[in-house]
């Protein structure tokens, strides 16, 4: 049922979604924390910028990324100048695009979760000898658990389903940048419905199982909460 290209696409998709989610959590967490706590006057501008990539259709965003990251673009040009490899049509390029596009889905829930903790638990932890980083991980993160869950699920799922950006800056190269969503799209596009149903069904089922596991696990942990 699944040919080699499909299998490769699945592997790339998982790798892309996992990498993107990981990077988003890594970058998004401190950023969301900062947004939740800064008293900077103009933070509302930054908050607006975070949500901005969303309003562009993905293909169009992908197009602009292509221009920016391409050899004639500002980023790509600079990179080339410094002797780096170009980013477009590579897995790295895909990751950059996905990270940008899925950013708000990770940053916003985290920011909300951090803000709702309030200052008290962190103060308590400080009086119990926990350094800022220590208390961040042992207090803020567990208390913001539901925010992390939302962020991770939205970020991961959105990256799996994302397609326009990835198509544009990835170039749909089988085995390298062809992800599952594009593979399914291709099948639908050329009327290979049977194949598309299989892939979609499998994707849905796998995602459903994964999400269910995540939520069930979350439920088990949260039983400890008040």
């Amino acid at each position: 049922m699944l040919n080699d290209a499909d299998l490769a696409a699945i592997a790339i998709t998982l790798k892309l979604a996992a990498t993107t989610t990981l990077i988003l959590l890594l970058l998004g967490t401190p950023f969301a924390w900062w947004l939740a706590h800064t008293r900077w006057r103009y933070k509302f501008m930054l908050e607006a910028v975070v949500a901005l990539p969303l309003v562009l259709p993905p293909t169009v965003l992908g197009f602009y990324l292509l221009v920016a990251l391409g050899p004639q673009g500002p980023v790509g040009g600079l990179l080339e100048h410094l002797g780096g490899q170009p980013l477009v049509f590579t897995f790295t390029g895909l990751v950059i695009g996905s990270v940008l596009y899925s950013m708000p889905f990770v940053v916003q829930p985290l920011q909300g979760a951090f803000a709702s903790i309030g200052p008290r638990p962190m103060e308590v932890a400080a009086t119990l000898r926990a350094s800022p980083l220590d208390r961040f991980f042992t207090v803020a993160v567990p208390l913001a658990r539901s925010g992390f869950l939302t962020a991770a699920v939205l970020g991961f799922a959105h990256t799996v389903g994302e397609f326009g950006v990835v198509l544009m800056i990835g170039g749909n190269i089988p085995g390298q940048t062809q992800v599952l969503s594009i593979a399914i799209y291709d099948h639908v596009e050329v009327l290979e419905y049977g194949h598309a149903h299989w892939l979609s069904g499998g994707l849905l089922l796998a995602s459903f199982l994964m999400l269910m596991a995540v939520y069930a696990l979350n439920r088990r942990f949260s039983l400890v909460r008040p």
Partner: protein
Amino acid sequence: DEIHIAVASNFTHTIKLLGTRFEASSGHKVTFSFGSTGKHYAQIKHGAPFHALFAADVKRPELLDKEGIALPGSRFTYAIGKVVLWSPIKDVVDAQGKVLQDGTFRHLAIASPKLAPYGRAARQVLVQRGIWEALQGRMVRGENIGQTFQFVKSGNAELGFIALSQIKHPARAIEGSVWAVPQSLYSPIEQQAVLLRESDAARAFLTFVRSDESLEIMRGFGYATPNVE
């Protein structure tokens, strides 16, 4: 060697078969990236690693040629698309396409005339018949010819202008009812290919596409073939 070729979505089935044959006979490996020609053009301009482009039209290959991105002299017409008016239901479409004037259909699907050559052809047909304006409110546009087909196939649009290649398969008969639109009603949908990077394998593939064996295959999938000079 391994070569990588960007191909317009409508040509997917055909080129896959060509690719398999080519690999068997030459020992090279070909991979394809399918997509809209507009995207491929943008990607090629920004450094996409394709060896060749099989476009859905003439315009983009011409541009690449002019801009000096395509290898000089490599551009050629590999196939000519045929437009049909199709409905998956029997007797909806008559052999003269009168249904367009008399029909009580709710939706007519066409590809976006702006984006897809098949859409442009559909418009030419309707303009010729003088019903382009009248049908505006009943027309739904697919982003490409694939989507247009889905509109019709799913029954949401009763009929639509699609590519013959979408319903014609060498091994199967056509379902539903169809009007094969005469070539005279629209300017030919030439699909051109260009070579983008120097590669013996790619040149070999382009040559293979022009072989009689290939042309036979293309005709089987519903394309007209250019007169080979």
